[in-house]
């Protein structure tokens, strides 16, 4: 049962990743690409990690995985902000 | 280390050490420098005196020092080296006195006398070299020590002729080195032994030996100014007169001629050289040089240049004597090593005196100089007549033995004509000079009178050296049969070479 849940979560996580990546490639400008990438990837990673955490059945490892997710969330939030800020500044300068 | 093993080193050090000290002397310390120079030269005369006595009585003076496996620095006194050493030593003493007078007020004297002593040390080393390796070392050192002397004045012409000198001698040195290494590879360390050693090598090496002989002769021929390798010598006459004297009589040219004698007699052996057919080749080269040099001398108005071409011609008498198989020819060649040195140094001293005293550089300016400077001109005349071969001056003895040797060796057919032609030419380029000096009326003023006539016709240090060497030239002819005379010594060398 848990195995099935884990697989389901993993697969849907990969699906979000795929969507985010397609968005990155297909969307027209920087802001919308950023939009696609951060949201989809953060969610995708969350699902992936949830799946993996279920899969391991070890609390310590599961906690470490969650920690990774949190770290990536913070990093991607900050970097998305920086990228957007940089792009804004460049626009207003020119 | 006993005395016999130290003596060659001491003879070398008696000029080397003063030379090295002189480099560090201040320009102004004139007295100390003169003292060092003369003390070194004097000490060398004494040491060489001991050496002459010892070699005559079959002492062995031998210094060895290993530089690398199979490569030894050997200083060894045999009859031939003693002959050359004594020539250099005596003439060095005289030339030092002359140079002190000549360079009285010119700059950079410490540098000059430093290299001057190095130059003589290299010559002594070369004379005492006991094997070809050592000979090559001192041969190259001689080049190095002479360069600053030729370039000494620092003028563009001086630098140019120094450059030409280097081009010739370093090129020659490289060829000599190649030959020496090659010989070393096929025959091992080549100690100089009377009669040579190479005849023992098997026949298949003869081709290589011929090639090596050619390389050695080219290498030595540059310094000996064999045509067509003589080009540097006339150029080098821009050097100060004492340097010219050194180049022409004591060191450089002689080193080449001495090397030829060494290689033929003590490396290859004169018999073996003859068997290889190399002796005739050397003789032809010498003959061409003798005639060519004399011809060129005819047309030179510059006195030193005329003397330079005369050297080209005269030095090859030594090579010619070497090329004549048989003891009498050998004696003629070897004794000329000494005779030419004494006579030619006199001529250059005199030429230097004319230039320093009266500013005379050209033959055409020499009218009547005999009245103004009789002693110098007398010395000049004795040496010039000796060069032509007028008895009883030294030059006559050399030519006599050369001619006799050629007859004995059956080479009279071409050697005698060469001797006759060259003597005629010698007369043709020297006699007009003497005529002008003694019999023409002097011009109203000398080109540039630097030294006024006072007690002597010129400065004492300039006057005595040519007078002394002219006296020596006369004595060498007059007392040729006396014991320890150059002729007797050459006879001793020939006896040992031919094991008579």
């Amino acid at each position, binding site marked *: 049962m848990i195995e099935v849940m884990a697989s389901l979560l993993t697969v849907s996580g990969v699906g979000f990743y795929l969507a985010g990546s397609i968005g990155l490639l297909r969307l027209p400008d920087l802001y919308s690409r950023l939009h696609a990438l951060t949201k989809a990837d953060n969610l995708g990673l969350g699902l992936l990690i949830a799946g993996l955490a279920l899969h391991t059945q070890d609390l310590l490892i599961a906690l470490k995985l969650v920690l990774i997710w949190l770290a990536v969330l913070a990093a991607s939030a900050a970097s998305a902000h920086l990228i957007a800020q940089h792009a804004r500044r460049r626009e207003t300068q020119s | 280390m006993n005395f016999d093993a130290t003596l060659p080193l001491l003879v070398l050090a008696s000029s080397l050490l003063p030379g090295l000290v002189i480099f560090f002397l201040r320009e102004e310390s004139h007295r100390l420098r003169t003292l060092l120079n003369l003390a070194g030269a004097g000490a060398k005369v004494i040491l060489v005196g001991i050496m002459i006595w010892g070699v005559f009585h079959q002492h062995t003076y031998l210094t060895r020092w290993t530089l690398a496996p199979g490569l030894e620095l050997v200083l060894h006194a045999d009859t031939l080296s003693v002959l050359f050493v004594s020539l250099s030593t005596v003439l060095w003493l005289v030339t030092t006195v002359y140079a002190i007078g000549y360079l009285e007020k010119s700059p950079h004297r410490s540098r000059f006398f430093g290299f001057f002593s190095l130059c003589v040390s290299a010559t002594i080393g070369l004379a005492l070299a006991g094997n070809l390796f050592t000979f090559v070392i001192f041969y190259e050192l001689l080049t190095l020590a002479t*360069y600053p002397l030729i370039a000494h004045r*620092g003028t563009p012409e001086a630098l140019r002729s120094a450059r030409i000198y280097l081009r010739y001698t370093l090129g020659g040195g490289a*060829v000599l080195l190649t030959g020496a290494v090659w010989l070393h590879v096929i025959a091992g360390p080549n100690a100089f032994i009377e009669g040579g050693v190479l005849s023992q090598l098997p026949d298949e090496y003869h081709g290589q030996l011929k090639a090596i002989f050619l390389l050695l002769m080219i290498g030595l021929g540059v310094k000996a100014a064999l045509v067509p390798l003589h080009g540097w010598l006339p150029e080098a006459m821009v050097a100060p007169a004492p340097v010219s004297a050194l180049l022409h009589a004591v060191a450089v040219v002689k080193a080449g001629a001495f090397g030829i004698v060494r290689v033929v007699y003590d490396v290859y052996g004169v018999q073996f050289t003859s068997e290889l057919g190399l002796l005739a080749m050397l003789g032809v080269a010498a003959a061409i040089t003798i005639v060519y040099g004399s011809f060129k001398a005819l047309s030179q108005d510059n006195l030193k240049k005329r003397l330079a071409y005369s050297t080209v011609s005269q030095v090859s008498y030594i090579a010619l004597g070497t090329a004549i198989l048989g003891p009498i020819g050998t004696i003629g060649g070897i004794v000329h090593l000494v005779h030419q040195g004494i006579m030619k140094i006199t001529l250059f001293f005199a030429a230097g005196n004319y230039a320093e005293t009266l500013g005379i550089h050209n033959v055409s300016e020499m009218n009547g100089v005999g009245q103004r400077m009789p002693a110098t001109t007398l010395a000049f005349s004795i040496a010039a007549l000796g060069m032509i071969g007028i008895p009883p001056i030294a030059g006559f003895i050399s030519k006599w033995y050369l001619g006799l040797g050629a007859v004995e060796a059956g080479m009279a057919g071409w050697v005698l004509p060469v001797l006759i032609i060259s003597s005629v030419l010698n007369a043709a380029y020297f006699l007009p000079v003497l005529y002008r000096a003694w019999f023409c009326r002097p011009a109203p003023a000398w080109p540039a009178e630097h030294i006024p006539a006072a007690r002597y016709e010129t400065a004492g240090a300039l006057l005595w050296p040519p007078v002394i060497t002219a006296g020596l030239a006369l004595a060498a002819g007059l007392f040729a049969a006396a014991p320890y005379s150059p002729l007797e010594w050459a006879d001793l060398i020939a006896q040992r070479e031919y094991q008579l």
Partner: protein
Amino acid sequence: MAETLIWLIAMPMAGAVATLLLPRQSTPIACVTAVAASLVAGTLLYAVSEQGSLSYEIGGWSAGLGIALRADGLSALLLMMTALVMLASSVYAGTYFTKAAARARFWPLWLLLWTSLNALLLSGDLFNLYVTLELLGLSAVALASFGGKFAAVQAALRYLLLGLLGSMMFLAGVSLIYAGYGTLDLATLTLAVEPEPVAWTALALMSAGLLLKTALFPLHFWLPPAHASASAPVSAVLSALVVKVAFYLLVRLWMDVFADLVTPAAAGLLGVMGAAAILWGSWQALRTERLKLLAAWSTVAQLGYLFLFFPVLLALPPGPARDTAFGGLVILALTHGLAKAGLFLAIGIIQQRSGHDRINELNGTAQRLPATTFAIALAGVALIGLPPSGAFLGKWQLLAGSFASGQWLWILVTIAGSLLAAAYIFRVLGHAFGNQSYPRHSVTIAREEWPALILTTLAVAGLGLAGAPVWNLLESGA
């Protein structure tokens, strides 16, 4: 006695740390370190001549698991040369850099360079050699750019990139060796190595890297700008030592560790490259307008002679004949090291006094700076290979070996190269003897002029007249 090996590395390294921590006292500390390290090098030389080769296992771990330091006659001689050159250049650098702040920044790098030179000459482990090569390369580059002049920084950057490329090639070879033989220890490897693809590919890769570092033609192009634009003491050490130790490593690999692999064709290839280096380097030295470039190009040429020995040595039968020729190689390398360092130091003085190093405007140097000019002349004697320099003995052996093995081409090249060297040296001396007055009246400081004079005198008279012990040492420390 084996502790001297580790002291040779630890001492300059500790000196580097001390100069960094006590910048005010850095110059005396550096000088004391230099003297002490030279004394240790002398001790090692003596020990090797008495006891034969020495080894030291660091940490007490046997070689293989741990790293061993080894010193035989060859490395002891090169260590001694390094010590002499570094000592003389240290004394010189103490006055060359006039600002105390510059000196304080200079000494740590300088002593680290010394550390790396000693470490390389002593290392008996392939990977450790890679690390020492990198330490050597980086400290050399940092010193080459020292002072921050544009040309120097530019040349240093190129030098660094090529050096890194060389190190990477070397490391690739090392990894192949470990894959094939499971060891990094040179002594173990010497016994294990066989003529097979793994070994010769590894040797080819390592050699390619080292050839780049030792600047053999046609991989020499980085050398002249880097050596000519650095400051004088640094140029001296770069030309005399840094390229030389890379060459040492090549010799170690070709003649020692991988000796069974080397074919006449491979050695001949090195010989051809060496011949090209001699001719091209000398020609460029003859054409250049600047004295420092002349010296740098002459380094390219002189390294060529060392490579001519490879085909000659291989053609000689193992035994006394080859050992004698090998001694010629070593004495040539030693002479060049001392002479070239002295030459660069002397050029540095001329450059500081006259404000430039243009050859055509150096007239009168002989009058103003007689000792320095004399040092240049002595260095010239050694570079041409005239007697009584050690190079003369070396070239004699080279020629003798070529004659004995019938390799005529090398004879022609050696002679031609020597004549070209004479041409470029006497071009300089000709101007120095010229009569025109020197631009500025100069004050000579003994501490500045002596190092160059002593180094060149050692190269000429020391190695030339007392060079026989070199052969004995190579024999006893084999």
